[in-house]
């Protein structure tokens, strides 16, 4: 059947199982929106800013594991998506972003609302396409979804000129797709797996170091059973939180700059690191030269470029982490005796770890007069549902959440790890709530970041999305202030917000409810009140203004040189 390009694009989404799109109309996508008007299979959510639209699609993707989809118009609409796209790219989140473009005849002429979004997003997308002929559109859409979700996932942008949206052709959706230059290696090499398990069983101080790849690859179950089977301690990155239950005795919690003392000490003293879907980011390794000096490294990742990028690797396995972990478990099962010996020999190692755990657990000093942010996080864990989804912004509250909110299930923490995008939390929570209307979705923000996409309050209220917005308000850009305190002689240059915001009135202006307190004794009451409300809520906690995130590995220091109290 012949149809126009705009309709074909929507039909392609339907074929890919997309039922939700976050998008913002404009001149060059008006044809798409006209087709959407009667297209009942797709629910469209209108954010109040294109950046938030992409973050919402990203939150939707992280929470569900599906590809998130966003629309934006050409020019400013498209450039507004860039931060959202870069955020998703750094954390390998599968998205398809469709932008309108000026008609092909005008491209390059500095037409009204023209931007070279293909050029602009080249380095922050996994791939991008400019559709120049409506006959190519269905194939390009198929490729876009395939590229976005396969291998190491990532955002793909499709730039769709207005004349291509109008042009008509027969709609034929290709069943399969072949891309010569793109063949991700998903199957872990069996010989390498065998060698890895052999090597692993020779170690006496092993640590499993888990990154976001385990969450993205839906491999949490395999990882958990491998760790328990071999009784190997597990530490995760920020992105890996939730892939191994933190209430398990093998859990070391998060490692790195604001990681747990026991996790960083375990890495430093380990003789065998099994890195799974992690990329040895500088926030994790500290000073590279002194990182894990005694350890052999087994690195499992679907992306070959992650391997040997930052650290030496003794045994690489390229493949889908779920496949590799499943094979490792089978291989371990074949060596029952060796495994039993191996586990017996770990007793000393477990004692070392228990010692580090009790010496410096993640902790804070409670106060009866002023609200400690860590206390709020602990109360939130205590009072929220087991399967609650937490979206954070970026900064101190993000680290406190990582440290004090116990994550036991994958896809329950949505956080901008790689790019560190302030303003991510609220729209990401919005996207997750759209995906799971029945689940509790909470965004934990600072007073800085929440104001970067505060306009999305309107989207929440309009769509009856009961997101609980927790603001840890210290009236500072807290993380930068902390660095200024520790490394810049307390010269608080431009980090004090000066002007207090009345968040209760702000919530009310959008038609939501707001609660606020500065008393530790009222924290629980406010949380309960907020959770009880059927709609979106702001819960503001005026916290100890100069509370720091500790422990901390100063930038450039080794992992074992942690500042524990400052």
């Amino acid at each position, binding site marked *: 059947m012949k149809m126009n390009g705009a309709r074909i694009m929507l039909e392609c989404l339907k074929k890919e199982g997309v039922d939700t799109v976050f998008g913002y109309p404009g001149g060059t996508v008006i044809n798409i929106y006209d087709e959407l008007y009667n297209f009942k299979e797709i629910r469209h959510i209108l954010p109040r800013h294109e950046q938030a639209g992409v973050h919402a699609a990203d939150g939707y993707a992280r929470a569900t594991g599906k590809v998130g989809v966003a629309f934006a118009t050409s020019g400013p609409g498209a450039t507004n998506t860039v931060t959202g796209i870069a955020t998703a790219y750094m954390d390998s989140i599968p998205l398809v972003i469709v932008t309108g473009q000026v008609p092909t005849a005008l491209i390059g002429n500095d037409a009204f609302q023209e931007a070279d979004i293909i050029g602009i997003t080249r*380095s922050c997308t996994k791939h991008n396409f*400019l559709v*120049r002929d409506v006959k190519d559109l269905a194939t390009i859409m198929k490729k876009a979804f395939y590229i976005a979700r396969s291998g190491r996932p990532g955002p793909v942008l499709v730039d769709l000129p207005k004349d291509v949206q109008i042009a008509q052709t027969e709609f034929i959706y290709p069943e399969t797709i072949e891309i*010569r*230059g793109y063949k991700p290696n998903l199957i872990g090499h069996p010989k390498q797996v065998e060698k890895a398990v052999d090597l692993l069983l020779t170690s006496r101080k092993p640590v499993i170091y888990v990154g976001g790849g385990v969450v993205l690859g839906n491999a949490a179950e395999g990882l958990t059973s491998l760790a328990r089977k071999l009784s190997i301690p597990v530490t995760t990155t920020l992105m890996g939180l939730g892939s191994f239950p933190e209430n398990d005795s093998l859990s070391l919690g998060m490692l790195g700059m604001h990681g747990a003392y026991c996790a960083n000490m375990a890495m430093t003293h380990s003789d065998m690191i099994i890195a799974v879907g992690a990329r040895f980011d500088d926030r994790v390794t500290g000073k590279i030269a002194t990182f894990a000096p005694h350890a052999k490294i087994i690195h499992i990742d679907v992306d*070959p470029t992650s391997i040997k990028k930052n650290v030496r690797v003794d045994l690489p396995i390229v493949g889908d982490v779920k496949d590799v972990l499943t094979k490792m478990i089978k291989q371990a099962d074949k060596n029952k005796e060796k495994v039993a010996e191996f586990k017996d020999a770990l007793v000393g190692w477990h004692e070392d770890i228990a010692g580090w755990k009790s010496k410096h657990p993640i902790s804070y000093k409670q106060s009866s007069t002023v609200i400690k942010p860590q206390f709020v996080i602990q109360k939130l864990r205590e009072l929220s549902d087991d399967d609650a989804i937490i979206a954070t912004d970026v900064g101190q509250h993000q680290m406190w959440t990582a440290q004090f909110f116990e994550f036991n299930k994958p896809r329950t923490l949505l956080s901008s790890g790689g790019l560190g995008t302030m303003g991510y939390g609220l729209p990401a929570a919005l996207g997750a709530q759209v995906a799971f209307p029945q689940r509790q979705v909470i965004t934990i923000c600072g007073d800085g970041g929440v104001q970067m996409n505060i306009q999305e309050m309107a989207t929440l209220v309009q769509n009856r999305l009961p997101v609980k917005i927790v603001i840890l308000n210290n009236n500072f850009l807290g993380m930068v202030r902390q660095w200024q305190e520790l490394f810049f002689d307390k010269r608080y240059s431009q980090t004090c917000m000066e002007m207090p915001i009345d968040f209760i009135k702000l919530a009310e202006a959008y038609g939501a409810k707001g609660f606020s307190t500065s008393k530790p004794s009222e924290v629980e009451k406010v949380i309960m009140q907020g959770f009880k409300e059927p709609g979106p809520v702001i819960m503001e906690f005026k916290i100890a203004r100069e509370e720091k995130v500790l422990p901390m590995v100063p930038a450039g220091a080794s992992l074992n040189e942690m500042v524990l109290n400052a």
Partner: protein
Amino acid sequence: MQHTISVLVENEFGVLARVASLFSGRGFNIDSLSVAPTNEEGLSRMTIVTRGDDNILEQITKQLNKLIDIIKVIDFTDGSAIERELALIKVSAEDESRAEVLRIVDIFRAKIIDVTPKSYTIEATGNPLKIDAILELLRPLGLKELVRTGSVAIGRGAKGWTG
């Protein structure tokens, strides 16, 4: 160390920009780059001369392979490939130096492709080191303009390298 990398790419809109922005974005060097279509329809071949230690070269080849439009990447280590470059050289040639230029052109089996009373324009081909050598001899005579294509490389032996 200098490496010559051959890259087979889809002849798609923007593929050169993807490669160039990969190199600039990740801080890799490009000493020279040449690109043109091959005998296979829809494919182009790039020859990139770059430098770096083993780790950097490993990253460069992996990152190139990761680009969707790139089909194959080969790092021609020393001796496995034949490299050629073409240079167009405009050199001053008056009075006694006219004969000297001709002698140099003859020794390097280059060609004169344009003549004026004051200059010669020379076409020289060969291994990039040969081009460097002829330039060194011509430079004292007055080099007015130089255009080099950058290296192209092809593997030795009977086997053709295709997509």
